[in-house]
């Protein structure tokens, strides 16, 4: 359970997952933020105002899936690294997952990275489609990873090698 081991339950994830018909339409943000803490940079990050933290700063964010276009601006802005973008329309068999990344080395486009689950389990090696630097002040990279569609809601972190490779 999340409060005991840091791993959100199926139900937790279900509660923030866009409906199937919305996922089928393309990229959309998923805020895996389940605890009421005073925080709202995600709402400020969204130019389309698709993310709301209401009625006050302690509320958990709500993504309006009809307004969100999955641009991913929120991914690197969430201080808790808890927002991901999933695009189920990426290719025939693959979905694109955009996730925040703050380790070295930063993977290059075209390189394979090991996809990790919410509990840190290795789910396989997948191609990095894009690696966007967060810039001088933000510094959080946004990694776009092409994963099999059935893993789109499972892959939430990567490791690239080096000290965290374990090999």
């Amino acid at each position: 359970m999340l409060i005991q081991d840091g791993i959100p339950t199926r139900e937790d994830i279900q509660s923030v997952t866009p409906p199937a018909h919305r996922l089928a339409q393309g990229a959309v943000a998923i805020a895996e933020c389940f605890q009421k803490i005073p925080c709202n940079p995600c709402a400020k990050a969204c130019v389309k105002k698709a993310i709301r933290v209401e009625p006050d700063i302690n509320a958990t964010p709500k993504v309006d899936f009809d307004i969100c276009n999955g641009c991913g601006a929120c991914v690197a802005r969430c201080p808790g690294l808890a927002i991901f973008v999933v695009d189920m329309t990426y290719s025939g068999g693959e979905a694109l997952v955009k996730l925040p990344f703050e380790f070295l080395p930063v993977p290059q486009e075209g390189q394979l990275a090991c996809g990790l689950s919410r509990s840190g389990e290795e789910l396989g090696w997948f191609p990095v489609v894009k690696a966007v630097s967060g810039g001088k002040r933000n510094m959080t990279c946004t990694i776009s990873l092409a994963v099999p569609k059935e893993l789109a809601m499972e892959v939430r972190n990567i490791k690239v090698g080096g000290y965290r490779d374990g090999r």
Partner: protein
Amino acid sequence: MIREVEILVAGGGPAGLCAAAAAASLGAKVLLCERSDVPGGQLVKQTHKFFGSEKQYAGDRGIHIGRTLADAAVNHPNIEILTDAAVLGIYEDGVVTVLYKNQHLKIRPKRTIVATGAAEKFLAFPNNDLPGIYGAGAVQTLMNVHGVKPAERVLMVGAGNIGLIVSYQLLQAGVEVAGVIEAAPRIGGYLVHASKLRRAGVPIRTGYTIKEAYGNGKLEGAVICRLDENWKPVPGTEEDIRCDTICLAVGLTPLAELCWQAGCQMAFIRELSGHVPVVDGNLETSIPGLYAAGDISGIEEASAAMVEGRLAGYAAAGSLGYEPQKAGELRQGAAEELAELRSGPAGARIMAGLEKAAALLAARKGGAGPC
């Protein structure tokens, strides 16, 4: 020779820097004394992004917030900052003594804001004095301030925000984290911190404690065990964790010595994490003109410390006659910001502590209970 100043701020962390800037913005002249050689307090090692709202620089990393606050204070014509300047004592005749680069200074401020922060707590277990058993904040200083790799493999004790954040920062520094153990049945820190650590492969185990550390001359490992619902070790659940470093992240305690020594009304309030000076709505202690802001009056996030600093700064400057009406409005705005930060479940503990403090204050002032 005694130097006269309008407002003295003791401590150049988030609360002290914000207090100085707030008071100076209304026209007051401020002298800020910081014991270390750079202003910023513990923000200088906080590489993670802060929560809160824009008003508390949410989304910025602590290191950048520290630099922003320090630059603003350094560049303000009304603020003078002394570094390597530890405030030693606050005396009945209004004199405050300071050790400044091995010189003994005497200062007579009209108002004093104590913003000395907090210290890491220790934990009792066999062999807890072995070299390699450090405060989590100490390890953060070694790696994030000095760039020294603090360990090869760490056991983190405590899953509050500091334990979770420092574990993540250890991974960023290339250190292996064997796991985070937490005696309580629940993770105490923000769950987003726990989740990002968990998906990097670090186990978090609630209901576990450290039974003993071992090693010949230096730390070589620890024995951990499960706790039952009465916090008693469960026999047969012992596990050996090999590690060269144990980080203790078992809470902070207010550094309130100056307030004790000055003779402020003090109270032990568990929810505020220890002995704290009892303060009023202006963060003024029982000694008129002596304010306390930040962790010293209750352990909270740095975002709250910044707002408390501003509140005390406005109140102190206003009381000296600097734009009293504007000071009152700004003070009120800061109070509302604090109320908002503390209004959710994450603020319940601090609110319970502040209610206890308010009851003690009311008793002192002979008035009715807290409103």
